[in-house]
């Protein structure tokens, strides 16, 4: 059965520093992976998705993620964060006929 684990519930990082948000998945079939972002008091918005092809996926707002099949990971990265990146980030995997979301990682940007 498909599942997704976000290893960190909160990640503090200084402004202009790099960040990595970790995501591990389990799946027995073809893997479709997603990262969504939720700004305070708003709905979710797609950042990027991996369906097939290149393992490095570029998304909006300067984010990218790398699909690693051997490590069953899909970590999200940004080389330099801004205060506007303060949000909750959700990793998701397609499975059992629906998207399965992780519990989310709150990104705190420190001045």
């Amino acid at each position, binding site marked *: 059965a498909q599942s997704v684990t976000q290893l960190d*519930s909160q990640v503090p990082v200084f402004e202009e520093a790099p960040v990595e948000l970790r995501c591990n998945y389990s799946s027995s079939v*073809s893997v*479709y992976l*997603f990262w*969504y972002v939720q700004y305070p*008091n*708003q*709905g*979710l*918005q*797609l950042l990027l*998705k991996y*369906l097939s092809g290149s393992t490095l996926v570029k998304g909006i707002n300067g984010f990218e993620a790398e699909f690693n099949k051997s490590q069953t990971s899909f970590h999200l990265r940004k080389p330099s964060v801004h205060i506007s990146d303060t949000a909750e980030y*959700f990793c998701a995997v*397609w499975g059992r006929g*629906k*998207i399965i*979301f*992780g*519990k*989310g990682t709150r990104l705190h940007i420190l001045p």
Partner: protein
Amino acid sequence: SQTIHQWPATLVQPVGSPLSLECTVEGTSNPNLYWYRQAAGRGLQLLFYSVGIGQISSEVPQNLSASRPQDRQFILSSKKLLLSDSGFYLCAWSVLGGGTDTQYFGPGTRLTVL
């Protein structure tokens, strides 16, 4: 372009009272529609999804129900709210409903049951 609306934005209701949350989508036809609940520290839980008018699939047993009276309208209801129903309710739509599909979320309704 497509837009998705939810109302109300916030709601405070007493235990035992009824509930009706509405979601409408504009700019697309025959969308797949979803209701999620987001509770603190628990991520998103899929409650219901619908592939067409009158077609509702329930993901978890609960005192909530959903209806789709029109192609682009999705309603979440309850006859008697419980304290545990508090949370942030999100409606979403997608074109195909398959694994490659992006889901587009509404702004959400924050429900507090007292």
